[in-house]
């Protein structure tokens, strides 16, 4: 086949699926690699509590049931059963969460759990905050690692996790491959 300038190629008419391959030189040898291997095609998500408000027990770390998604590029967020993000591409992800509480609280904490254990704790305030956050960089192995968002509130009476995307949300995106 005769050499052909890239500029002479036809433009793609449909969005890339990630399964297409491109040539790349690795250790002096030209090999093919799928488009999905590039960071731009890695998982990103934005989930939130759509309602109703979620009941919280005082002094108890409670997993936030994030039951709606703004976007979930690779279907890696489970918004119906386990409310967790399990990316299928190994790498380092920036994960952020925000929690809104309705009641009068004397202490609030937002925490990211990785594989079922507390991994990052964000705001830990002995104050009546109605909105608090947590964020951090997390490594995922691309198969079994997952993260979840937990809320803690210490209060008398009742305090619920606020529904609404602007109050209670959980987001993440890959920033570097493994």
């Amino acid at each position: 086949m005769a050499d052909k300038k890239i500029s002479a190629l036809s433009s793609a008419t449909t969005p890339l699926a990630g399964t297409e391959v491109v040539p790349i030189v690795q250790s002096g040898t030209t090999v093919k690699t799928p488009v999905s291997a590039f960071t731009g095609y890695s998982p990103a998500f934005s989930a939130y509590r759509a309602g109703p408000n979620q009941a919280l027990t005082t002094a108890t770390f409670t997993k936030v049931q994030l039951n709606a998604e703004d976007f979930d590029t690779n279907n890696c967020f489970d918004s119906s059963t386990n409310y967790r993000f399990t990316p299928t591409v190994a790498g380092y992800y920036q994960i952020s969460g925000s929690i809104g509480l309705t009641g009068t609280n004397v202490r609030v904490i937002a925490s990211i759990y990785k594989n079922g254990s507390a991994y990052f704790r964000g705001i830990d305030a002995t104050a009546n905050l109605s909105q608090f956050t947590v964020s951090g960089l997390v490594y995922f192995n691309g198969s079994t690692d997952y993260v979840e968002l937990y809320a803690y509130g210490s209060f008398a009476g009742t305090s619920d996790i606020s529904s609404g995307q602007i109050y209670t949300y959980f987001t993440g995106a890959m920033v570097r491959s493994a």
Partner: protein
Amino acid sequence: MTLYEKIKSIYPELEDKDFVDVICLQNDSDGKGDYIAAWNHPSLTKPTNTQLNSVV
């Protein structure tokens, strides 16, 4: 009565600040309810299910 209230009933001397790192109560929103995820109190022993169930 919540698990927190039961523990406070058994050990009234516990303070709210103990219920973060010393004693960690957790609910995984899986329908199984609250449970003691960690108990690291230096002198008080973790209550048994019998003790917890006897609190009304």
